[in-house]
């Protein structure tokens, strides 16, 4: 099994204005991991763990401060030129947390998908229309959605459409940044099942960023726990969640409400 994505010594620091001029805020520190082809890797952590920064770097929205990201054997640099951006778009796609902000509010769904297809695979109209219908169907939206705008969609429908946009280019990796955390539980289940189905059908890899351990278990076979920008623990999801090695992972697991659970004062790990 070769790695689809190899991350080595990744570091990201932001310059922020502090009390004494500029200060360095480290979001990621010396992070290394592999994502195997066809595998689904969860990145788990609480707020401030740097997981969203990692997702944005891999998707090409932010440059890293140092370290390297290799995709399919080729180094992945921040796409400065348009050609690079287009090339990256066909390899890696992303689904965002906020289902209400991540879609252009006034663009109809059909036109949104066609815009993407037209840019990457300029073909005849009939083919594009067929493909749009196919994509909508794949995420469980009927054809009548083609003429609707995101405004008239519920959160779950929006998120499913965002997934349709992500798979439209048949990428090899989809970065999912907290993509179900804003959804109601009953709707979240629909999206989680959809993600599992799509992975089986299309063989896409996921980098699944989440704070929710139960959700992670549902979608991912590999799991990476982060805290304060550093890697805490990594391994097969089942192993990490059933037999956590690190105290932080244990405390994280202990804090998740479940039947018979009682809140405890000593779960928060202070630095």
């Amino acid at each position: 099994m070769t790695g689809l994505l190899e991350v080595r010594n990744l570091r990201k620091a932001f310059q922020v204005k502090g009390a004494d001029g500029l200060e360095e805020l480290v979001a990621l520190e010396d992070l290394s991991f592999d994502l195997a082809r066809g595998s689904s890797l969860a990145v788990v952590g609480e707020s401030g763990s740097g997981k969203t920064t990692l997702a944005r770097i891999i998707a090409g929205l932010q440059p890293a401060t140092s370290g390297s990201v290799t995709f399919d054997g080729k180094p992945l640099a921040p796409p400065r030129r348009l050609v690079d951006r287009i090339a990256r778009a066909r390899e890696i796609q992303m689904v965002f947390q906020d289902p209400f902000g991540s879609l252009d509010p006034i663009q109809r769904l059909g036109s949104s998908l066609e815009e993407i297809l037209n840019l990457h695979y300029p073909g005849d109209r009939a083919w594009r229309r067929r493909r749009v219908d196919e994509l909508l169907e794949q995420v469980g939206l009927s054809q009548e959605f083609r003429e609707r705008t995101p405004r008239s969609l519920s959160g779950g429908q929006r998120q499913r459409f965002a997934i349709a946009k992500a798979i439209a280019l048949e990428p090899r990796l989809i970065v999912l940044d907290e993509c179900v955390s804003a959804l109601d539980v009953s709707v979240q289940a629909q999206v989680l099942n959809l993600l599992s189905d799509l992975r089986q059908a299309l063989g896409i890899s996921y980098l699944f960023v989440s704070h929710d351990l139960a959700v992670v278990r549902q979608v991912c076979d590999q799991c990476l726990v982060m805290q304060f920008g550093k890697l805490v623990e990594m391994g097969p999801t089942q192993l990490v969640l059933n037999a956590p090695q690190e105290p932080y992972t244990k405390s994280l697991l202990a804090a998740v409400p479940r039947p018979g659970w009682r809140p405890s004062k000593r779960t928060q790990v202070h630095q």
Partner: protein
Amino acid sequence: MTAFISPADRQAPRSGSADPLVLLLAAICLTIFLIAIVGPYLAPYSPEDADILSAGLGPSGAHWLGTDALGRDILSRLLVGARLSIAGASLIVALSTLFGVSIALACAWRGGILDSIMMSALNIVFAIPGLLIAVILSALMGAGFWPPVIALTVVYVPFIARVIRSAALRERRRAYVDACQIAGFSSWRINLRHIAPNIGSIILAQATITFGAALMDFGAISFLGLGIQPPQAEWGLMVAEGRSELLEGSYQLSMSAGLMIIITVIVFNVLGERISDRYGRA
């Protein structure tokens, strides 16, 4: 962080039907524009023909709004004056919106040095009061139609750029812009096809409100004697021409021109506010 759970946004069955008040106001605006275009053909008298014999007449069947001190028909001058006033204000709005929006989009998208240089340059223009710029530029270029138009364009560009820049920045931070980048779209496409249409209502509202201000300021410069020169007709100039008659208790000239300005400005302002209230927040 949780802003997107706000119930107003959740389903938003925003009805596609337009606001009736907006339609009515838009109709009035169109009428004003129409008057500006066909006004000269509707005028019962020539606006520049002085007739000392019929000077200073009150309203009558022959002269609905009376005549001025030179015996010119006030209604005719109002109708003809609409052309210069409205054309001046429209040009100012069109030019300042064009430049303001382009600067704003470029600054918001690029950020960094371009943004800070642009914004400090605009801040320096801001540091000089608008009317003062207009007065100085009129001095530089001489009186007439174009000097106040150019001067007021310079004055309004920073205002528009500032408002639109902050709207564009807000828009740029929304996740759909990231999504567009990830889909491989070019910066031009993202700005022109996605960001600009989404802040379109803000641009429209800003332009509408600027129109009112431009009409008033264009008139002010003529009022000061630095813009349109007599015997041409322009509303602000007519207000100034009526000043001496006012002291003698005859107020048709100043008041009719003043009222035209006020009504036009109110209509445009209310329209602008309605647009931004109703369609501004996406």
